[in-house]
């Protein structure tokens, strides 16, 4: 059962076009611009975007190259809430996809330090995803856990969703997608970054759009219009968005504070994971800026993902990094023959992983339906504790690692053949919904998980490593059922 996106489909419009198609301002909702000011800015913007790539302002550079996102038909006024909703859909899908891609790369890395660094970045994507959910809830939208490959936007996505082992191409793509504005690239890195971008573009057969314009546009949409609040994004080119007639959200009452994710409850600080409660417009723009600064954006900060990927790229290029023999986009049928997983134990383990991943996703969605105070609070805390400790750390993470480092890919594979199965991470169809609907999905996921574990336990495990994880999951299914019952009876 699929629950799809809430927002419309994004398109990227060239900025110059959007400037000429500026709609009439909406009472109370959009910033008002006089035609004269708009035309002045339009001329200025055209001049700005005509500059070469090494523009002093990287946002303008990116917008010149990639345009601005839109959901409106040409010539029709952009509805700010529609645009925000679509951007938040896309943001959630991309954060989710990047998290899985980074986890897969981490699991493929034989060097524990490299694996840990990538897993940490993946965890930070989880923080971005949680903050995106907070922004959604603040606007009255439900939590949404779609993934890029469920609703791909060719030409708009930074690159097609792909589970692939660590490689120079993969690192180049990740760096390219998360690269900051040009002016934030240190001069001594310019040659290396140029090399990385060339490799990334070659890997995908075209230029890799940055995700940054999504967050830059969200920043603009949420930016309080009364001018009284601090603006965390330095040098943000408001004039560009103003000139392009990108609307802004009206001063709005930020809602669902009791259901938004708080950093403490998600044990955020141990992972360098940033989760921001969006209870005001100021908090919202700070949250968006922080996502942009840490990754997927055009700003830069000391904990940005970009330099970490560049560093890993350089290490891999110069010294080499050991990587397990893991396929690209593993599958159990219907894909590339070289990526097919048909070893019975690996097939069974992937079925368990998919079921555990589905349960985990639905549990996260259910958390966002429970309040942090009142009678629901203890169950919310218990569910978070369960999904972090038992869903992620004791199920999805170890299964992913075993599949990418230990379990064989092919039936009859020689003992000294190091081909590992890979973790399929099939997309989960239940991506949003109210609590009642999610509970139905969760029940099915728990049943599916139990059946998958039972099936896997019937198979011989030469590694001796899978049995313990399966035994843990068996134990934890009981906790899931107890939580399901308690939450169902609220």
């Amino acid at each position: 059962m699929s629950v799809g996106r809430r927002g419309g489909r994004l398109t990227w419009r060239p900025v110059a076009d959007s400037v000429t198609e500026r709609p009439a301002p909406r009472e109370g909702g959009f910033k008002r611009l006089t035609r004269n000011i708009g035309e002045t800015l339009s001329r200025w913007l055209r001049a700005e975007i005509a500059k070469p790539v090494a523009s002093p302002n990287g946002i303008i550079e990116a917008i010149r190259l990639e345009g601005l996102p839109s959901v409106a038909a040409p010539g029709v006024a952009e509805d700010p809430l529609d645009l925000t909703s679509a951007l938040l859909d896309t943001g959630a899908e991309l954060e989710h996809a990047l998290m899985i891609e980074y986890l897969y790369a981490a699991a493929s890395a034989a060097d524990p330090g490299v694996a840990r660094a990538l897993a940490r970045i993946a965890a930070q994507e989880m923080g971005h995803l949680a903050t995106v959910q907070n922004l959604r809830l603040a606007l009255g939208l439900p939590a949404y856990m779609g993934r890029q490959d469920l609703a791909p936007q060719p030409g708009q996505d930074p690159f097609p969703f792909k589970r692939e082992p660590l490689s120079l191409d993969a690192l180049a793509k990740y760096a390219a997608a998360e690269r900051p504005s040009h002016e934030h690239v240190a001069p001594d890195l310019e040659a290396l970054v140029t090399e990385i971008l060339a490799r990334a573009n070659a890997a995908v057969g075209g230029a890799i759009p940055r995700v940054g314009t999504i967050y830059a546009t969200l920043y603009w949409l949420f930016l309080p219009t009364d001018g009284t609040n601090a603006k965390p994004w330095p040098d943000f080119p408001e004039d560009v968005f103003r000139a392009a007639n990108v609307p802004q959200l009206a001063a709005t009452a930020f809602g669902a504070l009791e259901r938004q994710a708080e950093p403490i409850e998600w044990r955020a600080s141990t992972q360098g994971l940033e989760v921001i409660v969006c209870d005001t417009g100021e908090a919202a723009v700070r949250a968006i800026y922080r996502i942009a600064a840490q990754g997927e954006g055009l700003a830069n900060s000391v904990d940005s993902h970009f330099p970490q990927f560049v560093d890993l790229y350089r290490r891999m290029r110069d010294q080499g990094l050991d990587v397990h023999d893991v396929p690209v986009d593993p599958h159990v049928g219907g894909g590339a023959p070289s990526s097919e997983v048909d070893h019975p134990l690996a097939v069974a383990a992937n079925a368990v992983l998919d079921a555990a991943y589905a349960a985990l996703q639905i549990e996260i969605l259910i958390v966002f339906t429970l309040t942090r105070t009142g009678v629901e609070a203890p169950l919310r805390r218990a569910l978070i504790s369960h999904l972090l400790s038992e869903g992620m750390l004791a199920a999805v993470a170890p299964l992913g690692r075993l599949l990418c480092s230990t379990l064989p890919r092919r039936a009859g594979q020689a003992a000294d053949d190091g081909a590992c199965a890979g973790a399929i991470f099939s997309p989960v169809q239940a991506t949003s919904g109210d609590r009642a609907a999610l509970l139905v999905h969760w029940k099915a996921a728990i049943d599916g998980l139990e059946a998958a574990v039972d099936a896997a336990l019937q198979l011989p495990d030469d590694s001796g490593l899978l049995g313990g994880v399966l035994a843990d999951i068996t134990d934890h299914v009981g906790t899931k059922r107890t939580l399901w019952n308690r939450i169902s009876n609220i």
Partner: protein
Amino acid sequence: MAKTYRIHPGIGIARIGNSPDAMFLAAETPDGLPADFSAGQTSAFSGYKDANGFLKRQGARFRVFEYDTGPGGQDIVREITAAEANIEWRVQIANTKSAANALADVGGFLRPLGPPRNPDANRADLAITPVLPPIAGVNGSQLEAPSGQFRGRPVKIAELKTDVEGRLVVLGGHGTSAAHPVATPINSFANNPDWFDDVGDGSVDAVVTFPGQAPLDVEFGSWVIIAPPDFAPGVKGLASLFDVALSAAAEASWPPPAPSYQNDILPILQRAIDLRWVQRYGSWNSFPKDFALLGTIGGQADAARLQAYNKLINVQQGRVLNNFNYTRLQQHNLIAWRDGQFIADYDPAPPPAAPGPAALDRAALEPCVGGGWYPGIESGVLMTNPQIYSEFCRLGRAAFADAGEQVVPRPGYLTERMACPWQADFWECSGSWWPAQRPDKLFTGFPPAHTGQDWADGIQDHEDLVANFWKLGLATPGGTGPDGLPAYFETERDPSMPRAV
């Protein structure tokens, strides 16, 4: 050969508790039992909480030993007590967490290389440095002078007593952690401005005066660490601070000799299985339990050892336990065992460890975490540096280099590299850190009839743990299970603590 005097344990461990007057001493042999301590005497252990449900403090007891050389060159060791000499104990303990730099991630380890945790210009206002007057005699009691303060607020971090033999007992604080003077929230697992706690560490020295003789400074003094509570006493981590000290000592004459199965390998296997009572029952319970087979060489034992080795190694590097690695010596021993290069000396019923200085050293450090240095519980990654030791299980007093940093041993230098307050780390580090001290799950009976329950269930956040840590249960010995191996069940959880599930 001249007589020398040493204090043992070389590193003693006290633990905080909120009971106003009840306390206990931890076991003084590796597999011994704790004992209640009152009026200078020990008595049968009555539990980790007092009659009102408050958590008892764990005292660290120190003794002076005389070392002499016998005719055959062997050490003759005897304890010196108040019965034959006056022993004056001199202790300096400090908590300098709030005056220290913030912990920063350097290559996956936390080191104090961040900005100051607090911006106060007067660093002395932040360091809790009580003056502990010397204590001597039997059954003495000496509270700290009122000079341990954090920004002017008195904070008790240590208390000294002597027992009926004149041995020293060091006690820590009563579990007080707070933000002062403003109620700044806890936002980090490691660094929180305005916060203090009441753990600490420092030197333990003694002056011994035999009747008619001049006072004699004990040359080999000890160090005491006042640590957070151990909520799973009896369950040991895969690597302990004792293993860390062993490994550091082995560096001097690497490679080490072939390991003993009984002493070097079997404990790791047993600890792995014991962890089932505090985290992920299924995984830990799946470790092989045929200890006799695993302690032999040849035949089916070779494959069994290989599989057990793979399972043990798979625990590292975040695959099961975060930031965990066996010590270098443990890894060397495990490989030798896997390859059949070990002493097959399995004994299903070994004799108990003999009491004495070595047992004191080992018993003190074995319950302490020796991995997961992010940053740790009692002490951090600094303990892996061989230069920190002056001899086995004894910390030196001279400056040494560590990862490019010049470290000067002084009271507080170990615990300032831990989280401030300790509850911040305890709250966030659930799931895969130090289950042998900070359990994730506890049981009240044998699975499958009983399922594990979250140890911290009922605690809402860091600050709730600050207020209510003492209400949580402990994993304590519960006999043996159907498989004949030790069981540890949850006891002494405050009945007022709600459980959501």
